[in-house]
C-alpha cells in the first residue's frame, strides 16, 4: 500500500522494467495467443449459430413457397353449354325462383356426354363427370340468374376443372404409374388429352384463392372469408386491448403508488404474458360463450379472447416506452406548473407513443397468428360465406390453415402453403411497420 502511495523513482523504474519483462516472456506470448484463439473460436461459434438459423429459415421458406406455388394458378376448361329450356324452366315461367331451383348440374353433364358421345357405361359416365369441378353448377346458375334471356341458348363458359385434373395439368400426377395407383384412370387420361389437343384447357391466375370463401373442393376454396374473419377479430382485439392496455400502463407507470398490491399486479401481468394461449381459449369458452351467452365462432368472442392474451404484451411494451421518457421532460413540465395529468397527456404519452405503437403492432402480429384459443371458441367452423359482422360465424387465417392442413386432397396441400404465405406476408408487413416506426421516431436525448 505504502509503495503505491509514495512511489520512489527507483520503484517506478523497476516496475516499468518488470512489466516489460513479464509481457515478453514466451509464456506470456503463448498466453496471449491462446486468448486470441479463443476469441476467434467464439466468433466462429456465433457465425455458425447464425448460419444455422438462417439456413433453417431458408429451408422453411423455400419449402412452403414451392408447395404454395401451384395454388396460385388454376386449370380451366372451356365448354359450350346448352341452357336447355326443358331442364331449366319447363313452363317458360321466367320466374327466378323456378330457375334458381333448376338442376344446372344436368346441363353440365349433358354437355360432357355430348363431347364424348361414345361413353355410355354408368361407371364411365361418372368418371367423365369428375372432369369438371362442382363449381360449374354454381357458375351456370349465376350466369343464368344474372341474365334469364340465356335460357334456351348455348353459352360458352370457362370453368374450373376438378382438383385431380388440375393437379394432372400442373404435372403433379405421375401418368407413368400403374392405373390402380393413380387417382385418374386411363379413360379419363384420354379424355383429358383430347381436351388439351382441342385447346380447350388453359391455366389462369387463381383469383378465387383471394376472393373466395372456404369450400369442400380445393379448386373452389379461397382465403377471403378467413381474411375478413381475421380482420374483424383483429379489430375487436385492437379496440379492446389498445385502450385498456395503454390506460393500465399509464396508471401503473405514472400514478400508482408503489406498494405490495401494485407489485403483485406487476408480477401477475408478467405471469399472464406466459400463460399458454389455450387457457385463454378455455376461459373465453366458459365465460364469454357459456356464461354471457355470446355467439359461438364469432369474431367478437375470438377478438375478446385474443385481446386478453395481447393485453400483457401491450402493457409491458407501453410501460417500457413510458419509462424511457426521460425524467427531465417531466420535471420541465412540472417546473412550469403542469399538473400530473397534463405532464402525462401533453408530454409523456405523446413521446412514448411510437414505442407503444411498436409494442401494439408486435402484439397484434402475435394475435394474428394465434390459433389454439380460437379453436376453443369454435372458430374452426366450416363456413362457406364471408362474415359480414362481428357476430357472424367465421374463421381466421391461421385456423383456416389448420383445417386445410387436415384435408387429404392434393389441392389443399398447396392451398395450405399458399395461405401460410399470405399469413407470413401480413406478419412481415406488420413487423416491418413496427421497425419503421421505431427507427423513425427513435429519439436520442
Amino acid at each position: 500500500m505504502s509503495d503505491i502511495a509514495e512511489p520512489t523513482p527507483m520503484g517506478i523504474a523497476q516496475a516499468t522494467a518488470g512489466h516489460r519483462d513479464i509481457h515478453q516472456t514466451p509464456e506470456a506470448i503463448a498466453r496471449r495467443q491462446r486468448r486470441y484463439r479463443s476469441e476467434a473460436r467464439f466468433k466462429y461459434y456465433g457465425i455458425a449459430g447464425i448460419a444455422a438459423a438462417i439456413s433453417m429459415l431458408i429451408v422453411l421458406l423455400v419449402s412452403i413457397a414451392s408447395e404454395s406455388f401451384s395454388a396460385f394458378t388454376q386449370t380451366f376448361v372451356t365448354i359450350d353449354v346448352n341452357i336447355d329450356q326443358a331442364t331449366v324452366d319447363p313452363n317458360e315461367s321466367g320466374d327466378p325462383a323456378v330457375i334458381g331451383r333448376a338442376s344446372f348440374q344436368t346441363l353440365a353433364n349433358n354437355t360432357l356426354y355430348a363431347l364424348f358421345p361414345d361413353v355410355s357405361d354408368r361407371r364411365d359416365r361418372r368418371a367423365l363427370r369428375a372432369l369438371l369441378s362442382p363449381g360449374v353448377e354454381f357458375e351456370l346458375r349465376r350466369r343464368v340468374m344474372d341474365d334469364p334471356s340465356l335460357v334456351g341458348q348455348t353459352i360458352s363458359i370457362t370453368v374450373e376443372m376438378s382438383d385431380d385434373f388440375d393437379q394432372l395439368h400442373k404435372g403433379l400426377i405421375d401418368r407413368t404409374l400403374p392405373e390402380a395407383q393413380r387417382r385418374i384412370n386411363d379413360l379419363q387420361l384420354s379424355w383429358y388429352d383430347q381436351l388439351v389437343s382441342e385447346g380447350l384447357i388453359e391455366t389462369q391466375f387463381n383469383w378465387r384463392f383471394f376472393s373466395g370463401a372456404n369450400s369442400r373442393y380445393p379448386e373452389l376454396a379461397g382465403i377471403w372469408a378467413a381474411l375478413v374473419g381475421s380482420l374483424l377479430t383483429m379489430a375487436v382485439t385492437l379496440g379492446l386491448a389498445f385502450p385498456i392496455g395503454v390506460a393500465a400502463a399509464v396508471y401503473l407507470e405514472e400514478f400508482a403508488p408503489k406498494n405490495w398490491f401494485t407489485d403483485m399486479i406487476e408480477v401477475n401481468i408478467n405471469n399472464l404474458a406466459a400463460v399458454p394461449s389455450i387457457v385463454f381459449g378455455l376461459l373465453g369458452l366458459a365465460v364469454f360463450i357459456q356464461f354471457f351467452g355470446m355467439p359461438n365462432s364469432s369474431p367478437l368472442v375470438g377478438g375478446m379472447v385474443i385481446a386478453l392474451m395481447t393485453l400483457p404484451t401491450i402493457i409491458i411494451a407501453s410501460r417500457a416506452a413510458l419509462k424511457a421518457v426521460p425524467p427531465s421532460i417531466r420535471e420541465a413540465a412540472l417546473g412550469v406548473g403542469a399538473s400530473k395529468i397534463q405532464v402525462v397527456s401533453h408530454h409523456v404519452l405523446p413521446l412514448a407513443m411510437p414505442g407503444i405503437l411498436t409494442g401494439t403492432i408486435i402484439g397484434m402480429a402475435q394475435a394474428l397468428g394465434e390459433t389454439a384459443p380460437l379453436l376453443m371458441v369454435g372458430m374452426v367452423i366450416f363456413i362457406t360465406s364471408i362474415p359480414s359482422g362481428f357476430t357472424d360465424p367465421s374463421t381466421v387465417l391461421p385456423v383456416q390453415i389448420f383445417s386445410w392442413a387436415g384435408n387429404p386432397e392434393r389441392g389443399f396441400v398447396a392451398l395450405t402453403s399458399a395461405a401460410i404465405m399470405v399469413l407470413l406476408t401480413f406478419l412481415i408487413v406488420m413487423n416491418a411497420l413496427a421497425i419503421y416506426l421505431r427507427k423513425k421516431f427513435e429519439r436520442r436525448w
Partner: protein
Amino acid sequence: MSAQTVDAEPMAAVGQAKMTARDVDVYYGEKRALHSVDCDVIENEVLSLIGPSGCGKSTFLRCLNRMNDTIDICRVEGNITLDSQDIYDKELDVVQLRARVGMVFQKPNPFPKSIYDNIAYGPRIHGVSSHKDDLDGIVQRSLEGAGLWQEVKDRLAEPGTGLSGGQQQRLCIARAIAVSPEVILMDEPCSALDPIATAHIEELIDELRQNFTIVIVTHNMQQAARVSQKTAFFHLGELVEHNLTGELFTNPKDERTQGYITGRYG
C-alpha cells in the same frame, strides 16, 4: 450589517423576505438530507447555494417549489413560506405554487417541440392567454428577457432541441419567465455549458434580478461571487453559514466555510 453571524435571522431586516425557510428537515426514506435549515430569500436578490456535492443544495432548492413531492420517499418537515404563506399547507395548490416559483434545471431540458411551443406551453396551460397575439407577445418578451430573441426570432417553428447547449438553457429560462413567476430557482444552470455560454447566463441572471427573486445552486465559487448578493454555504445537510456574498468569501465565520472556499474540500 457588520454584525453578521452564521445565523440567518438578522439579514431578514435587510430587504423584504420573499421566501423563508424555518427548521426545514428533509428525509429520503430513513436518510436525513437536511438538518433544520433556516434561510431567507430576499426579494429581487440573487441567493447562491454553495457547498460540496451531496450536501443538500438541490434538495433545499427543490423544497422551495415542492418539486420534492414527485419523489415518493422524500419527506419534508418544517416551515417554508412564500409571501408569508405556508407552501406546504394542505390547502395550497401546487400547480399555482410552481407557476409562482419557476425552475431551471442543471441539464437544459427543452421540450421536443418548437421554440415557440416551448415558451407558449406554460402560458397556455395556465390559461393566461388564449389569444394568439397575446401569446406571440409573451413569447417575444420571454425570449427577449432571456436574451435569446435576436438569435431565434426567425426560427421559432424549429425544434428547441436543435439549439446549442447555451441557447437551450436560455430557452429554458425564457420558458420559466413566460409564466411570470416571482421566484426563479436554478440548479447549477451552467454546469453543462461552455465558458462563453456561462458568461451569457451570468449576465442574464444579473438582469433578471430586476424583476425576479432568484435562488441559484452553483459549485463554482467565482460564479456565486459574480452573480449573487447573498450566499449560503451548506455542508452535510446543514446550512453552515449564510451571509452577504462578499462577506462570506472574504471573511467566513465558520471554519468549515473557510475550509471550503480555500479549497480544502469540495
